[in-house]
């Protein structure tokens, strides 16, 4: 049960990841699949952010000096860390995963835009965004002779 408390974030993130992946694989609708893909990517970001959390921490934006409570908390949570100079007794969360996931979110929205643009063209070319319809129409195409120039 202790494991559930300390690793709750990871378990939820895994479930969210799999929900996204399930949508991508199971849905026949191209738009729905893109939503699933976006969910999958967002959740991968949540995983990184969970890794970078530090108990009692605050956002990695330097402040002049922490309040008395913050300093006390810092000393309690991580004495070696708090003793270091330059921090003025404030615990910061790890900025590296934040920077990485900012990049990953951008990649996600880029993928979403391109994917939906292709889906729109599929609707225009095939008249449907259902995988099953497109497969049938593609198969018809494959049996026809190639168009001549």
């Amino acid at each position, binding site marked *: 049960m202790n494991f559930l408390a300390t690793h709750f974030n990871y378990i939820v993130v895994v479930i969210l990841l799999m929900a996204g*992946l399930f949508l991508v694989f199971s849905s026949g609708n191209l738009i729905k699949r893109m939503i699933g893909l976006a969910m999958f990517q967002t959740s991968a970001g949540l995983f990184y952010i*969970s890794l970078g*959390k530090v108990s009692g921490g*605050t956002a990695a934006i330097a402040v002049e000096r922490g309040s008395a409570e913050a300093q006390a908390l810092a000393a309690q949570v991580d004495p070696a860390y708090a003793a270091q100079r330059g921090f003025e007794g404030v615990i910061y969360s790890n900025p590296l995963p934040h920077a990485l996931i900012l990049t990953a979110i951008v990649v996600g929205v880029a993928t979403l835009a391109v994917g939906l643009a292709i889906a729109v*063209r599929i609707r225009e070319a095939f008249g449907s965004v259902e995988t099953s319809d497109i497969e049938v129409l593609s198969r018809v195409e494959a049996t026809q002779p190639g168009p001549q120039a």
Partner: protein
Amino acid sequence: MITLPASINASLMLDIVLLVMLLVVAGAIVRTRSLLAAIILFSIYSLISAVWLVVMDAPDVAFTEAVVGAGISTIVLLGAILLTRGETEKPDWRKLIAPALICASVGGLLIYAAMGLPELGDPASPANAHVGRAYLQRTASDIGVPNMVTAVLASYRGLDTLGETAVIFAAGIGVALMLGFGPRSSLAPPPAQLGDHHVTLRVAAKMLIPLIALFALYVQFHGDLGAGGGFQAGVIMSVAIILHALVFGLRETMAAIPPRVARSIASLGVLIYAGVGIVCMINGGAFLDYDYLFPPEIEAQIPGWILGDDAHAPHWGQHAGILGIEIGVLLTVTATMVTVFYGFAGRTVDDARREARR
């Protein structure tokens, strides 16, 4: 007053509540058959995860997630279902079994593997102790900006951000290639009587658009002090332009910013970013080494009091470099988001047949 035991537990409680909300919303997205509902739920999903990110001390990421997930993604998705006329998906129960098995097994493996991960919030975990802590210790002396996420993003890992800008640019090219060409029937002026209903909208939009643009600039130039930066600012700026297009019609907006100009601005942004790196190279440093951005003779002429604090090392190059690349990011992101919006908004289903005949 109710006093909580310690702030750690309060944030842990929030963490758990928000994650459960995420689970519920994710379940609803998987269950719903209506695409419109799925899109709105996905927008809510992004919003909740943005709140969760704030609890996890990641305001920069939260900001991005909010503007992207709940903002641009929703607009693009709504545009897509409008163009595909796909309002509900057709369910097919036979196709659910294999994906469910795959996802269950992969998920099981992941959870099993996650048991070996360090506890949440452990300050001594490898992830937080090695490079992550080095950034915390060295940002003040290396870069000299308060926001360490910006320092990592723009300076320590500046090449990643150049790649990110290139990705956005590529997405703009992709959407423009797919949807940006061909006839645009929706450019016809809107019916006159429509305007009577939207007078409130137009008045409010006139007030809001400059405010939003101003806010974007604030986010842009505040990025190295607090949460924010070029990407968030770019999305907000594009939202101002999109609002203009929604209220006053795409025709008006395209007259002000033609699609070709938008695409050019996007590539200009990447060029500015790369240009900053190349200037550093010409001045004798490595690519993106902002300390070499100014030749020594120029740097000597900058008076030290401009930043207001003589005690700290000035880091002129770092400040100017971050400013420069963030402007590049702003231009690319704004222009690309506008290009994407043009692509989706400037198309109707009828265009397809005309284009197919060409």
